[in-house]
């Protein structure tokens, strides 16, 4: 009996590690930017390229910054969730049109609806790089001081919105 105890315990430990490994998502890389100031930018509006969208305009507000693109299928999946959240009025969602064609982005918003008060244009993907975006959609929760408090990699679903985003927004609002 004793002979088998050691190999068995090693086996259990290895299985434990593998089991944890299975549950991890290698696509989700923890962002070093959470807890840091949201990188500054000033990008033209999608609707009116004459106007400039900058995070400084939103100081004192809790807001979401959502990187999306008309070519991104995950953004289509996420879109109804954003529409719902925008309609609830819990938190404003600002868009960043990432590496996209202007007319296609405008068509996309016309067809599926526009949850964003303002969409900035990041044609070269530079804002994306400063925010550590590596796959759209990605969503950042930014607090009143302009700090990044949360990063969602991949599409938001209604569960994440209800269990993470809204409680976090409420907590940040009360600060």
């Amino acid at each position, binding site marked *: 009996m004793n002979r088998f105890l050691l190999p068995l315990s090693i086996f259990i430990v290895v299985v434990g590690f593998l089991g944890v490994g299975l549950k991890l998502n290698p696509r989700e*890389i*923890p962002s*070093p*930017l959470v807890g840091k100031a949201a990188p500054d930018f000033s990008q033209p509006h999608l609707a009116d390229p004459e106007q400039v969208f900058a995070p400084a305009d939103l100081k004192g507000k809790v807001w979401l910054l959502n990187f999306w693109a008309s070519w991104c299928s995950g953004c289509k999946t996420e879109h109804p969730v954003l529409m719902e959240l925008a309609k609830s009025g819990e938190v404003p969602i600002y868009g960043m049109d990432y*590496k996209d064609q202007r007319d296609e982005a405008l068509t996309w918003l016309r067809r599926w609806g526009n949850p964003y008060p303002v969409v900035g244009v990041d044609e070269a*993907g530079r804002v994306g*790089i400063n925010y550590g975006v590596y796959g759209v959609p990605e969503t950042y929760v930014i607090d009143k001081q302009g700090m990044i408090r949360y990063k969602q990699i991949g599409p938001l679903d209604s569960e994440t919105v209800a269990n993470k985003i809204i409680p976090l927004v409420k907590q940040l609002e009360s600060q």
Partner: protein
Amino acid sequence: MRWLVLSLMVCFSGPVWAEEAKPLAEDPVVEARLKHLAVELRCLVCQNQTLADSNAPLAEDLRREVREMLAKNMSDQEVIDFLVARYGDFVLYRPPLKATTTLLWVGPFVLLTIGATALVVTLRRRARKVVDVPVTDEEQRRVEQLLAEGGKRS
């Protein structure tokens, strides 16, 4: 005169061709540094490719950023710090030795030590189990007899 014109043509056509065949890189020094640096960096979209190998749009953008930074004479370390600040240690193929990565760096050596110790212990234990048993004269005779019989049968 004709030879002069011809030789002039030959002389001047060379550099013109060279101009056309110029590599895509503006500055070969920057390009060499980019190549050297990009194999140390991971593409975040195709996670098992380096920034040098990947054709993902993000990798192209990041190569462009790195190229621009190198052209501005920033050191390799500054470029790496720029990327790590945005994407974390994950962009590095050689993660730095930190509290969170000690298991990663030390783990294999710990396993190696455990394995080597187990091997030595097992071998020693086995060596102790083998005990010399002297053969008596009676047994020796019996062995020879059996061997002799076996030889006959075959």
